[in-house]
């Protein structure tokens, strides 16, 4: 569920398995979640696995960068470390993100540049559409 979902309870929602998971965890947020919260972990495609890599960088990005928007905006990008750096500056100067401590900032930039560099063909979680219909990409998956 998203912030919009909370504000538009009858307009935005989720269906299917993950919807159930979200609801369970949502309730737990107000009560108490049993440790090991298997529901999130045991789901076929646990959302948390959607982010590539591991380590401190991944952890910070997952928790920090999902505070205002979902990580889908992060996962859609493919940028050099330099552009990621500029994006973080913009996030701090214009969007009110508290600056990360220096070492954490470097860790985050390393993570983002490694997993969401310019070679990462951006898309949402569906995987790349067979074609954007614009530009030079093949229209059908090459055989």
């Amino acid at each position, binding site marked *: *569920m998203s*912030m*919009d979902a*909370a*504000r*538009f309870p009858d*307009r*935005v929602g*989720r*269906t299917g*398995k*993950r*919807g159930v*998971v979200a609801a369970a*965890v*949502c309730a*737990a*947020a*107000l009560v*108490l*979640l049993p440790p090991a*919260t298997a529901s999130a972990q045991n789901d076929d495609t646990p*959302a*948390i696995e959607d982010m590539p890599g591991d380590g*401190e960088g991944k*952890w910070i990005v*997952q*928790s*920090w960068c*999902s*505070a*205002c*928007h*979902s*990580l*889908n905006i992060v996962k*859609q*990008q493919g*940028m050099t470390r330099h*552009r990621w750096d500029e*994006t973080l500056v913009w996030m701090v100067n214009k*969007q*009110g993100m*508290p600056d990360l401590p220096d070492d*954490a900032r470097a860790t985050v930039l390393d993570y983002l540049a490694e997993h969401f560099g310019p070679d*990462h*063909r*951006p*898309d*949402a*979680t569906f995987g790349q559409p*067979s074609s*954007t*219909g*614009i*530009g*030079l*990409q093949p*229209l*059908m998956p090459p055989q």
Partner: protein
Amino acid sequence: MRKDRGLRELYEQDPIAADEAVFGRRTGPDRRGFLKGAGLAAMGLAIGGAIPFSRTMPAGLIPAALAESVEDFVIEGKNGLRVLNDKPVNAETPPHLLDDDVTPIAHYFIRNNGVPPESTSPQGWRLTVDGEVNETLNFAISELADRFEVVTLRLQHECGGNGRAGFNPPASGNQWTTGAIGNAEWTGVRMRDVLNAAGVKDSAIYTAHHGADSHLSGDPDKVPISRGVPIWKAMDPHTLIVWRMNGQDIHPMNGAPLRILCPGWPGSTSQKWLTRIQLRDVVHDGTKMSAPSYSVPYHSVQPGADVAEADFKIIESMPVKSLITSPRSGHHLPTGHRKLRVRGHAWSGDDVVTKMEVSYDFGATWVTADLHAPPNPYSWQRWEAELSFPTKGYYEIWARATNDRGEQQPFIPPWNPKGYLNNAMHRIAVMVPA
């Protein structure tokens, strides 16, 4: 922060203390209660770590990391959209769902910058007109309808970043392909009539639009988006303040109960959840008015180049463009069939499309399509053509529009840092089996 301990470790041990150590701030009393109630720690367990940054996370919300997938995301009253992001909601329309002359509400794209207002009921909604006017005015929606001529127009309305996914190197932002465009039938009043009622001062050169959505961070002092247009565009009789979409209430995600529809310009000039139009004696400097937002370099630049802020200009009219809306890409003709009718729409910002062509031989030759006049200025225009394929094989259909200034859709539009104005020719694939 102490260097010998990682951020994660700090937060795992004590999120409240960590928050204080890292940001030098104390968690507010309301938040503190929430944290103590184990909500945060419990959620932290679920995502494999505690949640820093709880200040901006409204109580009771699960972190987005727990609900990342957009595949099963449903928006009531919408269907068939490709969801790019669930928070804020951003979703585009596949080309084949844009085949109607009037885009159905269910298929109309969504571009949100922040959190929509809690209530989108027209009851009690007010619009203020102020700034460089003789008299500040304030209207209920029903008063707008009573006082000014009510008009209904079909208007093309496209996000400035439509096509961003086609740029290389990739440009940052939502990766729209071709679907951040719609052409609905909008009902409302002319912005010009409303501004004239307030009395436009000579000093007014630009509008500033304000909406009721709130910033993603939850900070009430921050504004998700506030853009405007030069006064001449605001005074154009096709720039409307609207409350009906296709004869129905506007969808909440499309700006109900009141929005601007400033056709032919980046969608962001058509403020949603409209509460105030302010006239200004300077170019508006609201959120997302300054470069690089909704701006492109004055001169074309090498792909990937850094561009100085002073070298950007604000986007005005959108470029000439078209879409093939039928058939759907990947279409297979039945065996023995060699003929195919193709159709779509063409539009061109402030201008009119005067020629539409399609090619099935990778641009070597072009067939002129039938192009309809727009039902009213600023509507997109229907085009259609019949093609005969000479042999069996894999074909691509390419479409290109030309406007009354002689501007034509390019193969590859100029790269720009934020990936705006991609009006490359649209292509679809067709298989002719025999």
